[in-house]
């Protein structure tokens, strides 16, 4: 998950499709995000590299649409519906996830265990 500036980022990702749940007049996804290029990366408890300014999942509400879809705490969100999430501000990330005219968000997330799993399977 570390990146070298100037080189393309390579990661093992998992595709997660979350259906938004309508609660009153809000469409909720059921998790919380943290991070962004305008935030302090040193405070992120989930990142390996403390200079990583990506968007991380900090909390997943139990029995919410995100947990049902397989999202786990500590995941780094790489893409939302095709939009990049590695170099966005916190507010831009929130907006991308909470678009009112979209019912489904398709995320590409990555976590450390994915890489280990791939390595194990290759060995």
């Amino acid at each position, binding site marked *: 998950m570390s990146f070298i500036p100037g080189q393309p980022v390579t990661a093992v990702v998992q595709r997660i499709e979350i259906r938004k749940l309508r609660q009153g007049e809000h469409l*909720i*996804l059921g*998790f*919380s*995000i*943290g*991070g962004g290029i*305008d*935030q*302090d990366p040193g*405070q*992120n408890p989930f990142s390996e590299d403390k200079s990583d300014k990506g968007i991380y999942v*900090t*909390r997943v*509400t139990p029995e919410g649409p995100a947990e049902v879809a397989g999202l786990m705490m500590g995941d780094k969100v790489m893409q939302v519906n095709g939009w990049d999430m590695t170099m966005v501000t*916190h507010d831009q990330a*929130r907006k991308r*996830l*909470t678009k009112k005219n979209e019912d489904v968000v398709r995320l590409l997330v990555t976590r450390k265990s994915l890489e280990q799993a791939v390595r194990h399977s290759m060995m």
Partner: protein
Amino acid sequence: MRWELKFSICDGAHRFLLVVNRFPDSLYLVGSSPCPLASKIDSFRSKVDLLKLPLALSTKSISERKSQLGGARERGTGGGGARKPCPPTRDMDNESQYSGYSYKSSHSRSSRKHRDRRDRHRSKSRDGSSRGDKSVTIQAPGEPLLDAESTRGDDRDDNWGETTTVVTGTSEHSVSNEDLTRVSKELEESSPLECKRFLGPVLGGCLGLFALFTPLAFLVLPQLLWREALEPCGTPCEGLYVSLAFKLLVLLISSWALFLRPPRATLPRFFIFRCLLMVLVFLFVASYWLFYGVRVLEPRERDYRGIVEYAASLVDALLFIQYLALVLLEVRHLQPAFCLKVVRTTDGASRFYNVGHLSIQRAAVWVLDQYYRDFPVYNPALLNLPKSILSKKMSGFKVYSLDENSTNNTNSQSRAMIAAAARRRDNSHSEYYYEEAELDRRCRKRKARLVVAVEEAFTHIKRLQDDDPTASSPKHPREVMDPREAAQAIFAPMARAMQKYLRTTRQQPYHSMESILTHLQFCITHNMTPKAFLERYLSPGPTLQYQRENGRGRHWTLVSEEPVTSALRQGLVFSLRRLDFSLVVTVQPLPFLRIGEEFIDPKSHKFVMRLQSETSV
């Protein structure tokens, strides 16, 4: 039939009396005489010869004409605008009349007095004139654009004493009350002040000279009287002579620099420190003379060196007294200790000043110095609420009490009246608001016209450069003017706009046509822009700007509950009174400041990003 009377007074050598009228009867009075200083118009008019009397007038008596002239003169000066200096011919009839509503709008006391007379004249002239027409004619220079209210007010009396038109409320052969008060005021201000002002410095000067010549006398007297018996003294004496000479020189120069200044104020009581110092110097020198007389002159002391040392010690002591004087008179009051709040009673203009330790009278002088610089000039015409509002407020209930034992009844009745008046719904505040807005709008409109007129006028002239006379002379011989003539040339187009603007802002008593011309000449000479020329008229300047140079001085009365030589302290209140307003001064000590220290390491300026925010989606 309207008469307009113009005359210029005392602008040098000649005085013209020019009467212009509008209608078939015309009376031309042109007289010129050397200008007597501060003479009354009444006496002057009796000397004027009637040079030309057209036919129609010969039937009317001269005194009737004169009375009409008197009335017209008051009105004429009130309505004085710029008028052309062309000979008063019949074609004046074709010119339109100066608009008449300016008479109605003036609020002055004396103009109200003459209003009925004006109305009488105005009704006669109504056939020929229409109210809305405007006229532009230029007065001869030196003529004041004055209202009848110019004779009011102490300051303006001083200014206008020699050059005003005298507006009397009575017939032309008597001296009115206003003249009497003005004359008495001039008299009382002139003579006593001259003597009293210079008494103190003269005394001090004599004492100083006495003290300065004393050491020289000490040295010279033994030489004169018993030269043969003196012991010769060698080099120590030479040294003492030189040091004595230089110390005396230093004393002389520093006395000149510090103390020999014309006093700027006369105080009601003695200036304590100055008196103290003069007494000290006198006692000191007198005691030295005493000892000298007893020890040196009588026994004919032969030790000349001792005498020289004696004189040197006197000079040393004088130097120290001068040091004491410097500290007491000049230095002690420099460090600020009190804050004075000065409020003018008539319009509430207020300022705050920091002063040091002074006595009340010295503080008063200091405050007045700042007053003349800082406070905008007091304009009594600006104080009144518009008449429409005031009259409405004043027309309350009238209560007549006819009983004998009506003492407590009147109290209750007056209270009832006040309560009833308060309960009655009055809209005077909204009237006041709209009146203010209207006045503001009118003022701004006139100001805009004035600014445009002045800008245009200034484009008519330009400074003649040295290098282009050859280019201009063969084709168009341009007339080269000096600043005064240039000012007169461009004054004409802006005169009316200026006049109207000054009327609207009630400033016309302060600016006569002569003063406007002088200012214009000054601005042209110094290459000022129209805006610089106008800054004097667009905002009321400090009072000092409107004072004339005369040696009489301003008379202020210091009103105080404490003796005026006591020092300032907290909570003291005194006031400085003038004839029609006063300044109230309140003393407050400056707060004691406790200043602490905090050291910041320059390396300690560090910054971090904010905490991560978490958003739930």
